[in-house]
């Protein structure tokens, strides 16, 4: 990973930023996971009314949105690292990475639709 022609690509100083963001987003997702787990245990399972009222709460909508943004960033860094390690042809790798970015942005749009689309 360090040797070979791809070395210069690793010197853009984004390594440190991604290292940190990967950990911050992980902690955000961990806290949200514990929150949802606690809500489910507290209610002793979920029926439609409880589920619907949970998502009616403004605070929970924002927490869910935060979770999805953290997830999108986390997934981007992770999948990009896998692509950098295993997909050698540059064109194919860039194509895959572009698709991943587009898919993740679309997922965020879907999240907004679920949370604030009034479905």
């Amino acid at each position: 990973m360090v040797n070979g022609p791809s070395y210069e690509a690793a010197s853009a100083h984004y390594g440190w930023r991604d290292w940190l963001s990967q950990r911050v987003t992980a902690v955000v997702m961990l806290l949200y996971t514990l929150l949802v787990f606690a809500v489910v245990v507290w209610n002793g399972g979920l029926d439609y009314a409880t589920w619907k009222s949970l998502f009616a709460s403004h605070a929970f909508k924002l927490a869910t949105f935060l979770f999805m943004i953290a997830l999108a960033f986390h997934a981007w860094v992770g999948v990009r690292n896998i692509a950098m390690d295993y997909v050698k042809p540059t064109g194919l790798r860039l194509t895959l990475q572009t698709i991943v970015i587009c898919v993740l942005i679309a997922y965020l749009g879907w999240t907004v639709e679920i949370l604030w689309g009034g479905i």
Partner: protein
Amino acid sequence: MAALERPVVKPRPVYLNLLAIRQPLPAIVSFLHRVSGLLLFVLGIPLLLWGTHLSLASPDGFAQFKGVLGQPFSKLILLALAWAYIHHLLAGLRHLALDLHVGVDLAPARRSSAIVLVLSLLLTVIVAARLW
């Protein structure tokens, strides 16, 4: 002090048969961290959004979603995703501990990777017991 000699360049292996090399436990956990992460990206996120969308849409949608989850094939998918989430989370916690210089030595690092591997499988078994 003799004149510095150029180090002998040893022939490097050009092909490594990963299946023939016995991987250390931390390497296995690290590899599974990648596998589980990719699985969560490819299957987990779209199914999470689809399920949330459908189950919130209406009481009918909620019942429909529960019906889908009741099928054996869905349970298998859900179980695989549950393992992926649990393993990824626990292996991630191990990473955070290593970042804080906790358990960096060889013996504790081996032990913690064994704990991650076994605990995630145990918790997955509990999920399976609840699903069936």
